[in-house]
């Protein structure tokens, strides 16, 4: 009973905060309303008894939205995104897409012939999740991890405008690297 009430309240809070993203006129408020929405979703997972996933959503989304706030404000058309601005564009098109997607997903939930629950939830869902990810799928996870890491390194290498020749000279014979930020390790 209590779980049902909490679940509905959190669901309503998630939707309300999500809608609020498009009602406010500041990038900072929009970002943190979105975070509020995600936190409510994390709460829903906790209600479902998925402690690890719920807390993980809170952890990841907080870090992610704070970093996103930095980037969103950095790329605003007005200086630093400090002046009020509208959070919506292409009103009609986005309304159609949003309502259409919501209707399709909701219809899917109601129409799909869900199978009856088989078996019981495991005593420790965190262990079950870990075994599901790291047991038979270990090879996939390792490959994914390496691919993601290689992507990150490649992106940083492509994005930085200074390479080792800038740091150590054309013959790479400079004893100390020439860096814009002095100090640090081994300097």
């Amino acid at each position, binding site marked *: 009973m209590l779980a049902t009430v909490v679940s509905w309240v959190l669901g309503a809070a998630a939707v309300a905060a999500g809608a609020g993203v498009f009602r406010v006129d*500041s990038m900072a408020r929009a970002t943190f309303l979105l975070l509020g929405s995600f936190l409510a979703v994390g709460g829903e997972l906790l209600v479902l008894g998925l402690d*690890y996933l719920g807390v993980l959503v809170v952890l990841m989304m907080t870090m992610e939205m704070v970093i996103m706030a*930095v980037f969103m404000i950095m790329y605003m058309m007005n200086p630093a995104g400090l002046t009020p601005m509208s959070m919506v564009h292409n009103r009609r098109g986005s309304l159609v897409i949003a309502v259409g997607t919501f209707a399709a997903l909701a219809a899917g939930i109601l129409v799909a012939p869900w199978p009856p629950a088989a078996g019981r939830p495991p005593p420790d869902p965190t262990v079950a999740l870990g075994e599901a990810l790291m047991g038979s799928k270990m090879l996939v996870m390792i490959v994914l991890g390496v691919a993601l890491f290689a992507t990150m390194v490649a992106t940083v290498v492509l994005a930085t405008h200074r390479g080792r020749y800038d740091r150590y000279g054309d013959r790479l014979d400079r004893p100390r690297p020439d860096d814009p*930020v002095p*100090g*640090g390790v081994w300097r």
Partner: protein
Amino acid sequence: MVETAPLWSVLVLPVVLAALALGAASLDAVLAARTAGRAPVRAAMAEPLREVARLLVQQRRTTLAPDAVLWRLGGASVLVAAVLAAMVIPLGRHAVSDLAVGVVWFNAMEVIVWAALWLAGWGANSAYPLIGGYRFLAQALAYELPHMIALITAALGAGSLRVGQLVAAQADLWFVVWMPAAFAVYLVSALAMSFWEPFDQPVQEDVAGGVTAELAGADRLVFVAGRYLLLTTAAAFAVPLFLGGGHGPLLPPWLWSLVKTAAVLGVLVWSRRRLPTIRMDRFEEVAWVVLLPLALVQLLAAALVVLVR
């Protein structure tokens, strides 16, 4: 050996935390008075209480067109996050809630400080707090990964994310003995996450106090108290993570928890007075080039010990 305490312990937790934080503030004031050669040192012990009284009657400051909601939310979140994170820390045999994923819970609550500091910096609509908020994010990107690896190392040693299991696994041998590097990394990140010296760039004088520049009166009190509580929580969590929780001879477990917490807190407060501020851009490099590999090697070593044990 750790169990969830009855519901009224929710009321006890903030009191215990506040008492420890007040002790830390007193110690800090005494150390400051001694360094400055001010006498009597004993008068400095009441300094934090006088400061509380002063801030309570001081007028709050407003700036031109602040985002008041985000500003206050950011200032209060530091305090709230510190208390919530402390929920899983056992005092002897009892924690307010011994969650199955306690270590992750602590991590998640402590990350809320990222958002809190940025909001507190942004909301004032003033340049220096904004710079302070961004500085903390840069610093956070440096300390967070080594910090997480240190937490994982302790969890790996116990084979569980439950703080009670961590304590139980240290009945014979404290984790600090075979995870010294993880403990050191944790202490560094504890200072960095509560932005104390040497990691006080977000609130340093060179930007007129950074995030705290426009805070006065009750707002400043909430923020400063939150910062002390955060340091206290970080110090207290080192005890079940690496220092055997309530395990110890003669004294009852709850007293051991308190003694160890006070010791870690004392070391952190003392070290803040001994170390010069590190700029966050330099710390960034140190964190990624030294601390992170160190934490990873420590994790590998701990994993090998767990495998052959």
